[in-house]
């Protein structure tokens, strides 16, 4: 039996039995077991197949550092089962295997070798002939990488992000970490400790988050902590790093065999999980802590054949050999010992990555052959072993594999051997960073935890340099592997809905996105909705329009400076269309401005431009310091456009205000009650028919909508959606900012010269527009009409004299006109009435003619009626 009798301080709870599935077979476990420890107890020794050679690999570090035990758990790939607590009923599958872990068909790569073995083989081998690359790529994609990502994403798990601010954050809950935490707590600080291991008990007066991993130290002292399904973004006044050390492997022939372990791994198997790590063991190490594992081995009843302390005894050759990837013997300087466990340690290396990320300097300590953090930044502290408090530590050889034919691994994650590193150096990749990029050493799942130091030592030996001169590679986050789902957080797509939204749903509207808004595309047949607006009356929910109140003594001159057209002379109770430009002359938004009083204006913006315009206004007000207050009332007010020849009759039924043709003229703005609801009525006409835009408190949205539809049933009132509105406005050549204009468009080129008042003192964009006026523009926005019924795609190509010369921005079939119409950018020479164009439709060139005036009601008679 692998499981030992109860050990003092063991993590497992033998009173609680669990079970899970491994390759479809049930495996029993105790509470507190990890998948790794339970599988080990069940006799599993091979835990994975290596990245490149498909060599069998077993438990090595048992602390979540290496890649040796990565499996797929419940569909999540690359889970380190040595630290993943058992979940009842979980399904565990091995990965990177064709066949089984013990008989992997791809292990042929290891035996045959050939073109696959040397580093960089595919850079050299798989480039010729070039036309074969798609096949090479398909093959490489298949064999490269570890694990398979679920194509449908990790929808089972929900991830959240939490933001926390504490006085002291302690990373690492070992002895030193807890001591530092208690000391800080006694001084009254709010302290949080995060630790990678599941906690056994809860310390008094301290908050312990475990198992949880600090994945890095980012700018501003941000420490994101992976707490499973929650990413906690910590901001701490002080960061205490107590991450301890990482046992480093030795480089020798056969150092990756199953049964070669690090002292930390042995200690955890015995002490935490009461597992017997072997029968006959050899130990080779050079520091006291590593040698402590001999006591654990003896306590577990393991026959310890030999203990080599390389501080006292010089070893020059070491090799492990075995059968089927499992250790059977160890040869030390020619002496062969038969064993099934080889505990080999190249010494402890402080786990300094978080400190280095925080800005600490890392210095080589030649005495002990390790890198230690020095010169910590303000607010960052290192305690315990990570700070280099390690006592007497021996320095091993860079390699014990001279003269052996066996593979000596420097990096087991990526299967990089000593030979590969030497070869890279011989080929001229003579800096550590270059060797890293060429061989991928330190770039595997362990991120250099177990291979960084070994590669530096080897590099230094080969180039006869001091390790200090070789230096380290840059420590970058993440320090520990993290799921992309956790970084992404909860998958939510915020949507804004108007106060009338539910009425649209009830009416069976097809909804669509416009920016962050959900709006009705159509309630059925869009062309019938268009016809109803032309012939009777339609209502459309335009609550999404941005709505700003601009108040103050300077309100008029403020708008006068912001818009190219005039607002100072706008009379109270009148509305004017305006286009906002930048100082580069570019159109950023459009809308209407109504004067409510001497020093109050009501400004509407496009649906998607509300926030942008608000920021734009606020910014200029911050610059100009005018006596102006700007209020965003977008959400507070709903808006409905009532449009069609019978709109007046409908409105007249619901208000005592004078809405006659003379009482409320085109471009009048009037505050009145409609169906008892206080409204601002704007008589404007985006859709080209007699129309009234009613703006009123959102709370009355459904009521007023219902009332309009209810009281206008005999007039034929029907709701219309965005598609109908798009056709209607296109018949009038009314532009949609962002659809018909882009970041290059200006008001002159967009065929609105009447809106630009050059005689004003100044306005934002004046100088740039004056330059356009002087030098001419490159293209012009015009209407066009197809000679036949073809409807070009929006974005379709305009062809003049056989050359691409412009693009279609909007196009629709107008049933009212019986023609296909649109808007397009064309060369200025083409911007004249009746100019011929060709437009590419489905690959064919179709004839069209330029139309500069509205297609429908060009004189605006219906609009003004």
């Amino acid at each position, binding site marked *: 039996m692998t499981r030992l009798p109860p050990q003092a301080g063991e993590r497992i709870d033998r009173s609680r039995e669990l079970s899970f599935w491994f390759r479809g077979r049930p495996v029993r476990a105790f509470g507190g077991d990890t998948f790794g420890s339970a599988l080990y107890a069940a006799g599993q020794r091979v835990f994975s197949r290596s990245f490149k050679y498909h060599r069998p690999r077993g438990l090595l570090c048992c602390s979540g550092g290496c890649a040796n035990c990565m499996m797929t758990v419940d569909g999540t790939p690359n889970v380190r089962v040595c630290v993943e607590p058992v979940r009842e009923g979980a399904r565990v599958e091995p990965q990177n295997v064709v066949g089984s872990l013990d008989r992997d068909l791809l292990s042929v790569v290891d035996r045959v070798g050939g073109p696959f073995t040397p580093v960089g083989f595919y850079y050299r081998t798989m480039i010729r002939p070039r036309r074969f690359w798609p096949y090479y790529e398909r093959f490489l994609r298949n064999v490269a990488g570890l694990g398979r990502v679920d194509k449908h994403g990790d929808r089972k798990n929900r991830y959240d992000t939490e933001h926390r601010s504490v006085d002291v954050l302690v990373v690492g809950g070992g002895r030193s970490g807890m001591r530092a935490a208690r000391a800080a707590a006694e001084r009254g600080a709010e302290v949080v400790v995060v630790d990678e291991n599941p906690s056994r008990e809860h310390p008094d007066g301290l908050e312990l988050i475990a198992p949880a991993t600090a994945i890095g130290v980012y*700018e*501003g002292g941000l420490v994101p902590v992976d707490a499973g399904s929650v990413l906690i973004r910590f*901001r701490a006044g002080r960061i205490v790093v107590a991450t301890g050390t990482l046992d480093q492997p030795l480089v020798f022939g056969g150092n990756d065999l199953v049964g070669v372990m690090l002292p930390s791994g042995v200690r955890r198997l015995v002490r935490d999980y009461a597992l017997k790590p072997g029968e006959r063991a050899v130990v080779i190490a050079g520091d006291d802590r590593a040698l402590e594992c001999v006591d654990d081995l003896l306590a577990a009843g393991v026959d310890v054949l030999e203990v080599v302390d390389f501080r006292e005894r010089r070893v020059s050759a070491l090799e492990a050999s075995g059968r089927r990837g499992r250790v059977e013997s160890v040869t030390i300087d020619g002496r062969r010992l038969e064993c099934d466990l080889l505990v080999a340690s190249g010494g402890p290396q402080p786990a300094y990555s978080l400190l280095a990320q925080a800005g600490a300097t890392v210095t080589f300590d030649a005495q002990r052959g390790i890198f230690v953090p020095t010169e910590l930044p303000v607010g960052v502290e290192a305690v315990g072993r990570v700070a280099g408090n390690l006592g007497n530590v021996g320095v091993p050889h860079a390699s014990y594999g001279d003269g052996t034919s066996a593979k000596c691994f420097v990096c087991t994650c990526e299967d990089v051997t000593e030979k590969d590193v030497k070869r890279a150096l011989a080929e001229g990749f003579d800096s550590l960073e270059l060797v890293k990029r060429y061989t991928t050493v330190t770039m595997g799942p362990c991120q250099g935890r177990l291979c960084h130091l070994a590669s530096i030592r080897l590099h230094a030996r080969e180039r006869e340099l001091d390790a200090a001169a070789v230096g380290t590679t840059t420590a970058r986050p993440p320090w520990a592997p993290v799921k992309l789902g956790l970084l992404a957080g909860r998958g939510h797509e915020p949507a804004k809905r108007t106060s009338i939204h539910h009425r649209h749903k009830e009416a069976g509207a097809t909804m669509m996105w416009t920016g962050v808004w959900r709006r009705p595309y159509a309630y059925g047949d869009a062309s019938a909705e268009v016809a109803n607006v032309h012939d009777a009356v339609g209502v459309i929910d335009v609550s999404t329009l941005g709505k700003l109140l601009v108040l103050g003594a300077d309100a008029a001159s403020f708008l006068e400076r912001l818009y190219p057209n005039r607002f100072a002379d706008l009379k109270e109770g009148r509305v004017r269309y305006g286009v906002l430009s930048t*100082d*580069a002359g570019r159109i950023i938004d459009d809308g209407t401005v109504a004067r409510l009083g001497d020093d109050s204006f009501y400004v509407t913006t496009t649906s998607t431009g509300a926030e942008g315009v608000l*920021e734009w206004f606020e910014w200029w007000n911050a610059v100009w310091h005018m006596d102006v207050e700007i209020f965003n009332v977008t959400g507070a007010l709903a808006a409905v456009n009532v449009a069609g020849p019978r709109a007046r009759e409908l409105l007249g039924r619901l208000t005592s205000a004078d809405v006659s043709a003379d009482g409320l003229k085109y471009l009048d703005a009037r505050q009145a009650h409609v169906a008892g609801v206080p409204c601002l009525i704007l008589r404007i006409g985006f859709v080209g028919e007699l129309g009234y835009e009613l703006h009123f408190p959102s709370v009355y949205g459904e009521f007023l909508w219902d009332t309009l539809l209810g009281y206008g049933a005999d007039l034929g009132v029907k709701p219309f959606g965005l598609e109908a509105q798009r056709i209607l406005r296109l018949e009038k050549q009314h532009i949609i900012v962002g659809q018909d204009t882009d970041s290059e468009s200006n008001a002159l080129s967009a065929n609105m010269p009447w809106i630009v008042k050059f005689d004003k003192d100044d306005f934002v964009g004046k100088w*740039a527009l*004056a330059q356009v006026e002087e030098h001419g523009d490159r293209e012009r926005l015009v209407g066009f009409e197809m000679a036949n019924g073809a409807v070009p795609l929006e974005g379709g190509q305009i062809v003049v004299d056989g050359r691409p010369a412009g693009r279609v921005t909007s196009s629709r079939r107008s049933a009212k006109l019986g023609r296909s119409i649109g808007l397009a950018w064309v060369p200025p020479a083409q911007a004249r009435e009746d100019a011929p164009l060709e437009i590419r439709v489905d690959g064919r060139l179709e004839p069209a003619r330029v139309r500069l005036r509205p297609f429908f009601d060009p004189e605006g008679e219906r609009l003004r009626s």
Partner: protein
Amino acid sequence: MSFLLSCPNCGPRDVNEFAYSGEVTTRPAETPDLRALTDYVYFRRNVAGVQREWWYHRFGCEVWFLAERDTRTNEVLRVELPGRGDEATPAPEPAIPDTPAV
């Protein structure tokens, strides 16, 4: 980018709450010629050093304010609400670092 920025109203907050709006520029007082207009509209000094710049507390109190930030280290030296006449105040001369910024 994860540094903290102090809003003059709300105090230190995560930089992701703010919108950055570039270095402080000076709008010409008189009608500029094409060259001066182009400089104003398109050219930025893009200093490696302390820069005076506009920020907007978009996911907070929605105030526009000015910050002096070292673009090499993201250290924010000063924040303030714009005072009258800031438009005409040229940004401080950039501190040219001895070594190239990394």
